[in-house]
């Protein structure tokens, strides 16, 4: 295998075959993929959940994850949040000429490991190599399908008195990537929460139709996700600032950067709206599972604040949380 990716690796010729045989098949091998058809023929679905996402993160490797892990988690998590059990993934790679094969290998290994972890097969894929300067190292698109296992999730079922739950500390991914990108805060322990949510979502969904809606609050953070829940409804959400779990490191980094952790991306967290009668039980169940240790009830659904997410601050004040507007940028002073 060459040490860097060249345009020839995307030509569709011998070099492409070499890339597939030496780089991809050893990691993703399964009976559907090894046929190397143009597509995979899959059996056994009644209702399916189908989702796609593209990943363009910089840097490719960050504390707690990499673009490969992220690209599997992102699509797997989207399927889980719809009540699906993810089964199959496609991986499309757009690689810039000159990309180091060594780095590609790390990314592929990470994709393979994460897919195994969530029992998902990679059954089809594509590779394109673009000229140097026409890409940004590597872009990954993943598309996934899974069985629809829980068909009751619907934001229209959210009602007055329901509770809002989060599965752990918020804001970790966005802050960790921002810190890694700028090479600041090296001494601080800022780690992305990037992880597959199949286990956590499964234990939540076992509470049946007491669970109203699930979402993984990625870009825009929990503030944006909660606004999406109440859009077009007559209800609102009241959040309790003191109950929202945020790590001390993330809080400190956000203070320095001038960004708000409630708008910072997460890649391994679930926000759920659940019936009041199961809220504590769901949290206690989550706490026993890896990645759910910091689960908490962070707010309640109320018709007192219509179509708004309102935060009760630690000093007893209130402020509105709207959707993220533009992107969060570091401030001056």
């Amino acid at each position, binding site marked *: 295998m060459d040490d860097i990716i060249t345009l020839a690796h995307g030509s569709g010729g011998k070099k492409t075959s070499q890339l597939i045989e030496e780089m991809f098949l050893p990691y993703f091998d399964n009976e559907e993929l090894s046929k190397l058809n143009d597509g995979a023929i899959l059996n056994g679905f009644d209702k399916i959940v189908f989702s796609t996402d593209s990943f363009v993160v910089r840097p490719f490797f960050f504390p707690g994850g990499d673009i490969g892990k992220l690209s599997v988690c992102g699509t797997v998590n989207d399927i889980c949040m719809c009540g699906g059990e993810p089964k199959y993934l496609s991986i499309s790679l757009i690689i810039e000429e000159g990309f180091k094969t060594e780095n590609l290998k790390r990314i592929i290994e990470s994709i393979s490991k994460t897919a195994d972890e969530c029992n998902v097969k990679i059954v089809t894929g594509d590779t394109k190599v673009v000229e140097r300067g026409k890409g940004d190292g590597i872009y990954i698109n993943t598309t996934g399908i899974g069985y629809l296992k829980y068909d009751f999730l619907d934001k229209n079922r959210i009602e007055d008195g329901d509770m809002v739950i989060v599965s752990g500390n918020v804001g970790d991914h966005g802050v960790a990537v921002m810190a890694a990108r*700028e090479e600041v805060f090296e001494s601080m322990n800022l780690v992305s929460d990037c992880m597959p949510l199949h286990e956590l979502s499964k234990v939540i969904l076992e509470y049946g139709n007491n669970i109203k809606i699930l979402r993984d609050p990625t870009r825009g953070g929990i503030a944006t996700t909660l606004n999406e829940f109440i859009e077009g409804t007559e209800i609102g959400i009241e959040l309790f600032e003191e109950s929202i779990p945020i790590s001390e490191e993330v809080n400190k980094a956000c203070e320095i950067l001038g960004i708000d952790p409630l708008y910072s991306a997460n890649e391994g967290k679930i926000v759920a709206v659940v019936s009041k009668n199961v809220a504590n039980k769901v949290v206690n169940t989550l706490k026993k599972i890896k990645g759910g240790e910091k689960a908490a009830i962070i707010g309640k659904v109320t018709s007192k604040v219509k179509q708004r997410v309102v935060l009760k*601050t*630690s000093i*007893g004040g209130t402020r509105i949380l709207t959707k993220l507007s*533009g992107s969060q*940028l570091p*401030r*001056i*002073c």
Partner: protein
Amino acid sequence: MLWEEFNKSDAVENIIRILKEYKKRITIMEVCGTHTMAIAKFGIKSILPKNIRLISGPGCPVCVTPVEIIDEIIKLSKIKDVIITTYGDMIKVPGSNSDESLERRKAEGADIRVVYSPMDALEIAKKNSDKEIVFIGIGFETTAPNSAVAVETAINEEIKNFSLFSIHKRVEPVLRHIINMDNFEVNGFLCPGNVAVIIGEEGFEFLVKEYKIPSVICGFEAGDIIYSIYRLSEMIKNNTPFLENEYIRAVKKKGNEKAKAAIDNYFEFCDDLWRGIGFIKNSGYKLKNEYSDFDATKKFSIELKTCDYTGLCRCGDVIKGKIEPFECEFFSRICTPENPLGPCMVSSEGACASEYKYSRMR
């Protein structure tokens, strides 16, 4: 006052109860944009009694940057092989042509990079010796020392492709200017703790000595702000104006001597234009003549205007404390963070952005 002790809800409730007993109408200006944001973030206005009115002052550096300066920076971004380095807040501010901003120029292919400090800009200069790197030096006494140190480093390390576009401003002259305006109705100042870290308590003594206006140097936690409002209210009620340092954990009498020396070594005062306020004598910092090799205005022959164009935007009235953001006829109608008419809506620390983001429930 140790804010850790104070930042407890029962202490807050106690002070709110005492504040509620005052019946007199009190107007307090928070000079600093970071205070404006903290007030909104903690929901402080929502728990204060109605007779205590908080208004935003001229302390958001982006908000007071004239549109002509934004135009000049946009022009710089059009020069071949120039890399503009700037703090994030500047990226979205529209120029006099509302279709132009650094964000837009970046999308069009200009090399514009958000940095956290001018030292990052120097690193970019070292790695791009065939390009000219301009750092947009914005901010008050808080950020000016960093710019000075960057110039010093550029001189010592002979980094010749680096220059500073200094739009740094001074707090004292603008406060004097505002106090001397007609219809000045502010009863007390919440002074910026971050600026005071540099210029010291003594940098704000003139407010009390010369103008007899109660003033508190204040930190940025909820407890800091509520306690400072409480202290200001007491001084106003008892007509006993003095300067109190609430941010004692960070602010010394004489400030940070090293940072002040860095400013003095590299900068001199200049008359400067403030958006919506006007031209104020000795209110800006420009690089001394001997450092003109590192002065972007000299290197790129930038001519600075002395008269401000504000168009329809009423940001000037907002930062002079004449109107609150929601009193502007454009607020949240045609002026939003996605489509800002002026800098108070653009800057993350702007009074209008803060009002829009956090407080529209009133």
